[in-house]
């Protein structure tokens, strides 16, 4: 699949935004319920604003890949069947829930009332639902074997939580003056879970499976009587001398060497370097480390999303000569 840059930006940025707001709500509600701690209004406004900017920039970026954006408002029409529609509806529902929470907490000077609690929990649930919908858009597509996997959706949720945790850690370092050990431990555990999940995902897409050029063309199956399982089918002529919408969209080939290199780069940028930076930053109490980790992690996440597209092979490729996907 051709990587659509605006979609990469969208899922990484709004994923991080929802992750940040999730952790902020989790920590504020958790601290209030456990210790009766009131909410730090600087964190509430600063974090809330940062999260909303990330979410909104991402959502706006997603409309850039639409060929006819003037009809984008119609995307809320098919909530019952389309995951893309669900993503849009949940994304829209998040704003009133979260803003209600912010307003209620702010107007009570940091005390969380029952109403604020309900709004906060609702915002948390909706944020997770947006991430699940994003993952399901890809996971529900049967023609793309590498996307139609049980781990696709968990990975979208985990990456959102991981990048959000990193930003929340930096935000907390700014409001408290130092990097919190508890938060950095939480981040490291989350990063480890995400890494293992992504590793298992790569293992699950390793071998070609499913439709072949034989099932795609219905040709070559008669050869079973002759002892061979299936006859060879080869493309002689694609029928066009220039590129088509189909070859542009689905014919993308990055080359195995480049993909392997980028996978290594992704492990380093998304996990190893940010994790080491956070550990060192927490040890030496250097807040700048958290921001450096965020920047590197974003580059890693963009690489991860790029690979997610570049490694996906749509079955339409079988009609253009691929033997399997």
């Amino acid at each position, binding site marked *: *699949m051709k990587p659509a840059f605006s979609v990469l930006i969208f899922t990484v940025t709004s994923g991080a935004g929802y992750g940040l707001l999730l952790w902020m709500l989790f920590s504020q509600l958790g601290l209030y319920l456990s210790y009766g701690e009131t909410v730090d209004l600087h964190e509430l406004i600063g974090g809330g604003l940062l999260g909303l900017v990330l979410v909104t920039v991402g959502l706006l970026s997603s409309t850039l890949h*639409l*060929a*006819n*954006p*003037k*009809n*984008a408002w*119609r*995307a*809320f*029409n*098919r909530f019952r*069947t*389309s*995951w*893309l*529609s669900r993503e*849009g509806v949940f994304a829209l529902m998040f704003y009133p829930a979260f803003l209600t929470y912010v307003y209620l907490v702010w107007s009570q000077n940091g005390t969380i009332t029952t109403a604020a609690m309900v709004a906060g929990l609702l915002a948390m649930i909706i944020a997770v639902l947006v991430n699940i919908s994003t993952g399901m*858009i890809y996971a*529900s*597509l*049967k*023609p793309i074997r590498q996307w139609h996997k049980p781990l696709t959706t968990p990975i979208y949720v985990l990456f959102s939580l991981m990048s959000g945790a990193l930003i929340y850690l930096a935000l907390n370092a700014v409001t408290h003056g130092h990097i919190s050990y508890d938060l950095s431990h939480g981040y490291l555990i989350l990063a480890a879970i995400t890494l293992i999940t992504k590793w298992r995902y790569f293992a699950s897409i390793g071998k070609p499976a*499913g*439709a072949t050029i034989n*099932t*795609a*063309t*219905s*040709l*070559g199956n*008669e*050869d079973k*009587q*002759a*002892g*061979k399982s299936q*006859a*060879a*089918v*080869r*493309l*002689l*002529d*694609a*029928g*066009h001398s*220039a*590129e*088509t*919408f*189909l070859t*542009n*969209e689905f014919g993308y080939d990055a080359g195995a060497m480049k993909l392997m290199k980028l996978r290594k780069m992704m492990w380093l940028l998304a996990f190893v370097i940010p994790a080491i930076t956070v550990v060192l930053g927490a040890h030496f109490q250097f807040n700048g480390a958290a921001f450096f980790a965020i920047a590197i992690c974003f580059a890693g996440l963009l690489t991860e999303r790029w690979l997610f597209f570049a490694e996906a092979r*749509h*079955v*339409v490729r079988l*009609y*253009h000569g691929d033997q399997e996907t």
Partner: protein
Amino acid sequence: MKLGLVVDLDTCVGCHACATACKQWNTSGTIGPLSDTAPYDKDPIGTWLNRIRSYEVEERTPAGNASSKTVHMPMSCMQCDDAACVTVCPTGASYKREEDGIVLIDQDKCMGCNLCAWACPYGARELDLDQGVMKKCTLCVDRIYDQELPEAERQPACVLTCPTSSRVFGDFDDPDSAVSKLTVERGGKPLMPELGYNPVNRYLPPRNNSDVPTISAEKDAVANQAGPSKLKQWANKLIAR
């Protein structure tokens, strides 16, 4: 009604007339135009609802002799019973008609997100780069019900134009229709049935060539060991080289 096409892979000659006729009719039809970008330039690209690809199939006859074929395979929308392109559409632009099963796109509602093209395993949907909306085969819905046309012409443009009658249009729900009969007689197959989209269109497999009688090299060798007959030896001597 379940309208669809039968394509005969045995008789299709890969002339691309169906694709051309399709483009000619539909560029001014209900979903038209089918835009082209840089049509006379180095890298032309355009919207087509029908594409023809040619394959080489390396088969063998039941007797084990080589029976390779060149098979031309025209493909348009399969009008799937379980059309995922319709399910994934967020705007409701894509829909499947209850009365005849034709899958259509409301050009006024499409936002050009490409998700339906991703969901389609057959490459039946192409984004019109100029208009920014998705285009697909309509089974010439603006021909087949047109009372102004003579009855014989109320068929998709690709079917009417096919010089070898390799394309047949009809109702798969009617067991007596030409498409249903052909599918039964010739063992018509769906493409990629394992994906579970239940495509309506059927492809008739190319007929297998019968074995051509051949002379066995071993038999000849045994016959030659006995040597030529006396008469032949005498004749050979007589005719000097």
